[in-house]
């Protein structure tokens, strides 16, 4: 991919109209990226980490979530793996000193954020990641960016830039290292939130069922407070907006799921993201249990989002020893930020199935392949195997 011309112009205008090759699609690029942001290898647009390295590397080669973009995480069933992704995203933002706004939930939501344990990049190489330091030297640096991540979807390894920073490597305390792009977190520990953290909460809409409440949009107050918060922050400060469990009946009144309320809300959010495309990002989790993907409501939510991920949990048959790493669910990318908007589907990007695994240490998305035959049999005949074991026990 490195040898392909990035500025390839197809269907140029006539010779009279000089084409302008090589202009990156972002209009203006400040000298230094704001903290926690770095330029995308694809088009130089600034991106920020989602807090999950393997998710970063899936985002159409941008190696992060491009600023001004939104990510919709859909999840059927009653699980809340999407919530885990949102928490990493929030925790990463707090560690980076970004402003955080949580919609529909109070301070409790932030209390459960995972604690930072270090730099995701070094956690990878340190804990026997696929590339050891010595090995890494043998391959050209530009391939290093592409490698390792088995899915081949993103093209770009999340690590690339920060890894080569010698200061980073010398400085073990990565939580304060200025250049770390993505940190690793421990779900079992709680993040201590620095007092200076800029976290705001927007209360959920009132659940009142009286008729005026049905007529007026439950999202109107949310949008007003959000606009106020955005205007209070300096435009140079990166700002993450988090909307957990959108349309969940626990948080939102029934009128929220009316397209005439939800659509204008999502449309305005998209407008806000575009207006503040140099510092705003948004992540929404949407439970699909009540509103499946084939409803026009959810389809519109998807059309108005920049990236769409669906997490489909796999039924966990039983806990089998040695199967800790078994994927907990499948991941589908329905739309990729930036590229998806331009018309390039996810089709061109991936031919492989993706699955996610949540362990204590991380949320990881990787290529999904059926385990080797014998292992699979173990998996399927778990009961039979146990039967055998008991037989042995009996013989003893």
């Amino acid at each position, binding site marked *: 991919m490195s040898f392909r011309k990035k500025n*390839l112009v197809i269907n140029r205008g006539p010779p009279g109209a000089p084409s302008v090759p090589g202009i990156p699609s972002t209009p203006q690029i400040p000298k230094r990226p704001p903290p926690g942001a770095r330029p995308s290898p694809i088009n130089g647009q600034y991106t920020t980490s989602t807090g999950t390295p393997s998710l970063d590397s899936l985002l159409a080669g941008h190696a992060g979530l491009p600023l001004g973009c939104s990510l919709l995480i859909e999840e059927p069933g009653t699980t809340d793996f999407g919530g885990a992704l949102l928490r990493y995203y929030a925790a990463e933002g707090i560690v980076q000193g970004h402003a955080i706004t949580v919609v529909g939930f109070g301070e409790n939501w932030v209390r459960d954020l995972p604690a930072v344990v270090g730099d995701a990049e070094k956690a990878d190489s340190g804990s026997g990641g696929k590339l050891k330091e010595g090995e890494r030297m043998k391959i050209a640096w530009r391939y290093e960016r592409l490698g390792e991540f088995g899915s081949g979807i993103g093209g770009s390894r999340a690590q690339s830039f920060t890894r080569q920073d010698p200061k980073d490597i010398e400085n073990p305390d990565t939580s304060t290292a200025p250049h770390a792009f993505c940190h690793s977190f421990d779900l079992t520990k709680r993040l201590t939130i620095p007092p200076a953290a800029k976290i705001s909460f927007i209360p959920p809409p009132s659940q009142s069922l009286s008729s005026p409440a049905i007529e007026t949009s439950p999202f109107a107050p949310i949008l007003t407070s959000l606009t106020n918060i955005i205007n209070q922050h300096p435009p140079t400060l990166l700002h993450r907006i988090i909307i957990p469990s959108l349309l969940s009946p626990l948080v939102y009144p029934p009128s929220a799921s009316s397209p005439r309320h939800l659509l*204008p809300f999502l*449309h305005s959010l998209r407008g806000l993201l*575009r207006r503040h495309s140099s510092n705003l990002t948004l992540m929404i989790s949407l439970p699909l249990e009540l509103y499946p993907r084939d409803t026009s409501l959810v*389809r519109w939510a998807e059309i108005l989002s920049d990236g769409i991920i669906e997490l489909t949990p796999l039924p966990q048959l039983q806990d089998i020893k040695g199967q800790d790493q078994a994927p907990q669910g499948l991941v589908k990318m329905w739309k990729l930020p930036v590229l998806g*908007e331009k*018309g390039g589907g996810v089709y061109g990007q991936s031919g492989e199935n993706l699955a996610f695994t949540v362990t204590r240490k991380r949320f990881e998305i990787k290529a999904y392949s059926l385990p080797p035959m014998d292992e699979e049999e173990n998996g399927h005949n778990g009961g039979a195997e146990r039967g055998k074991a008991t037989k042995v026990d009996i013989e003893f």
Partner: protein
Amino acid sequence: MPPPTPLAPYTSPPPTPHTLTLITSLLPVPSTWLTQHLLSLHLSSSTSSSNPPSTILISLTQDQNFHLDALKKLGIQTQTLQRSTRFTFLGINDIQLDLPALSKTVREALSRASAGEEEVILMLESVDILLSSGAADINGVMDLILYIQETATHTIVSVNADDPLMRNEQHAALVVGLGHIAHRVFALRGLDTGVARDVSGVLRVTGGGGSAEGGKEVLYFVGDGGGVEVFERGEVRS
């Protein structure tokens, strides 16, 4: 001259004025690239003639930078364009989801644009969101589009035609209704045979209810940088 593509015979402006071109897209195969392609053809074809057409681009889902960046890559001098009074762009932040407000804006832009002698091209992107968000009923949207069609020389309208949306009676009626009055319909869809690394989707061009044109089906690919390649099925590509 731009390299000849299989699409070239179908992208030239329709011979008769006051015609409508309809673009339908699906979630995995958005039509933004086609909008930009058609727009760039209109804009660049005008540089040779003395009277470039006035262009109005109204997008209910995209912002100005998105389209201008893409046009820049297609070789359009966007800075000149932005300074020109002949080019009006209204993006997601300039328009509210409100039919009376939109139609007022459209009428103003059209009356400004059609003050001169030159042709007027109006593009309206994702107009169907007006219907789905309850901002307008189908009659309101159709009235607006018919008004635009009558006033502008060429009108290009894009709508989303995903299955879940088409199950909505009003939405289906809008898309089908537009198909009937359209001179030409560009329908985008995914590859029928599954996914491919080097094909983004299928583009089907047919004459709408308003014409007797034959049809054509081509494949296209949108690269990482946003460059688009259009080719025939089975064509050997470099």
